[in-house]
């Protein structure tokens, strides 16, 4: 090893530094990416410490201040029973993020494993995974999610499961394609020649190599997961009042729009929009970092 002059550890270290530098470049070079990253930090902060920093109790009603427009005391105004909308929007971040993150993590595991197995082994596994994905894609996705939640029961957990299922084809297909082009790559054949079993190759060679692309996929579908979950709760599925959640808060405020009390629906809706916007931008930005050739 000494005659090459470079030992593996510093090489990996330099690689990491280069990636970080490139990441910093991508974030700072484009103000939009910087904005998205800032928004992401803000959302994470709200999700973690939000409930302990809000000025009012998100569930406490006070009919004396019902339907007040935004003011200094109530930044986003109050709803029909006098709850502070600012506090409710902030507190809701945690639940919305939790639904999105856990459904994406679930589909990452399900779709990732199924897709990698399909692409690497081919044969009947490929057939089955392909059929399942095709069948899911045959439904309008939001409609299928409604059907799943109706069938499994009207709970937050089932919203997470439904959101994961409708995203399954996307993940399975990406993982399948990426595993498929690598099944006979040089390094895989080298690993095979040195006597590694197929499963071991799958875990130590294929999986780490397709991880970055799957991560990008996660961040790109995160926004869609939030939208989908909020849509389901908007029509009254999953989250129950008075729990603060963006979708259901927009639904509660919808009836007041026609009488001009816009703030009840507007602020949760705007928060929802910003969160989705932030994740969509972040996904594009992450793709630029991981895969500079596919820059948009």
């Amino acid at each position: 090893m000494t005659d090459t002059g470079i030992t593996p550890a510093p090489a990996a270290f330099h690689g990491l530094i280069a990636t970080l530098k490139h990441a910093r470049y991508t974030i700072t070079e484009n103000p939009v990416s910087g904005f998205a990253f800032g928004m992401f930090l803000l959302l994470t902060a709200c999700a973690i410490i939000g409930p302990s920093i809000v000025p009012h109790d998100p569930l406490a009603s006070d009919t004396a201040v019902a339907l007040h427009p935004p003011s200094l005391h109530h930044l986003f105004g109050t709803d029909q029973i006098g709850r502070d909308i600012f506090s409710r929007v902030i507190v809701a971040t945690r639940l919305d993020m939790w639904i999105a993150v856990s459904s994406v993590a679930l589909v990452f595991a399900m779709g990732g494993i199924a897709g990698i197995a399909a692409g690497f082994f081919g044969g009947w596994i490929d057939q089955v995974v392909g059929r399942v994905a095709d069948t899911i894609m045959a439904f309008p996705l939001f409609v299928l999610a409604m059907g799943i939640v109706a069938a499994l029961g009207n709970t937050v957990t089932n919203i997470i499961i439904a959101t994961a299922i409708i995203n399954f084809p996307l993940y399975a297909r990406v993982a399948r394609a990426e595993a498929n082009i690598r099944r006979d790559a040089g390094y895989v054949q080298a690993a095979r020649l040195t006597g590694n079993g197929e499963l071991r190759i799958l875990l130590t060679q294929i999986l780490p190599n397709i991880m970055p692309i799957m991560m990008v996929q996660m961040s790109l579908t995160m926004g869609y997961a939030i939208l989908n979950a909020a849509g389901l709760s908007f029509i009254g599925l999953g989250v129950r009042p008075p729990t603060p959640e963006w979708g259901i808060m927009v639904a509660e405020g919808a009836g007041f729009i026609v009488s001009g009390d816009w703030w009840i629906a507007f602020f949760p809706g705007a928060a929802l929009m910003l969160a989705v916007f932030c994740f969509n931008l972040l996904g594009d930005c992450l793709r630029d970092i991981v895969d500079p050739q596919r820059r948009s």
Partner: protein
Amino acid sequence: MLAQIARRLATALPTLVGVVIVTFLLTRVLPGDTAVYFAGPAATPQAIEEIRVKLGLDKPLPAQFVDYVKNLAAGNLGESLSTGQTVLSDIRVRLPASAELTLSGLLLAIVIAVPLGILAAVRQGSWIDHTCRIVATAGVSLPVFFSGLLLVYVFYYRLDWAPPPLGRLGVFYSAPDTVTGFYLIDSLLARDFETFRAALAQLVLPAVTLAIFALAPITRMTRASMLAALASDFVRTARANGLSSYAVIVTYAFRNAMLPVVTTLGMVLSFLLGANVLVEKVFAWPGIGSYAVDALIKSDYAPVQGFVLVMAILYVTLNFLIDVLYGIIDPRVRIG
């Protein structure tokens, strides 16, 4: 061509079988025991057992599946507990409302998005291009129920341009005689222009809401495929031969760029049919989406299952039509 369509039809069949299997499974994993649910809260064990036998729930699952398929073939989707009608007749009455809304939204989106995408590609880097990119990213981020409510606030409450968001026709109008079920077409057929205007006024906001939602993917795809077409050799040759830029862009580049756009329409329709449910809820539109939502809230499951099945069959059919269209636009493509 006909043989190709037949082949494509043959590939659509397994998909339909898959759809029927999934909807069957969804009916059988209802929360709790289906028989207990239908028997009501005060039922005795004997009554529950009777209902179990009556519904065929005591049979093994494959036998239940055969029953289910037989019912479907006979057009029996069950009965709605809340409306007291058969699900099929409810859906048949409400489907035209949804179809009119979705098609208007899609048409509006195409009419705006395709020229916008072409302009963005032709003038790459200009302000049109930037507008296009902002529209594309903002459009996919905007929750469709939120944009609908914003439109209601601005155009109904603030400006008073739009009628109240309460269904397909104002209370002072009566529905035109049913021919197609589309109020716009039926009122024109009846030469009732007042009703036509009223129906159009009701339709504009929900259709625009759907169109905003569908704009993003269509614009993005048109721009990308126009860019690819404009960079190709045949466009360079056409330019070098001195053809007018109109001929180059419309006849040469656009016709080739249309193909990927038509393919995206399948995905756009999937989004639109889902978004339709939310828009119908916001605008109290009496379509099948709001029907399913109302039933869902009342734990009335047969309409929801019928709705999911009908939507899936509709979507499979539309995708099939898109593929056929694809074959017509581009004779090189072998469909199926």
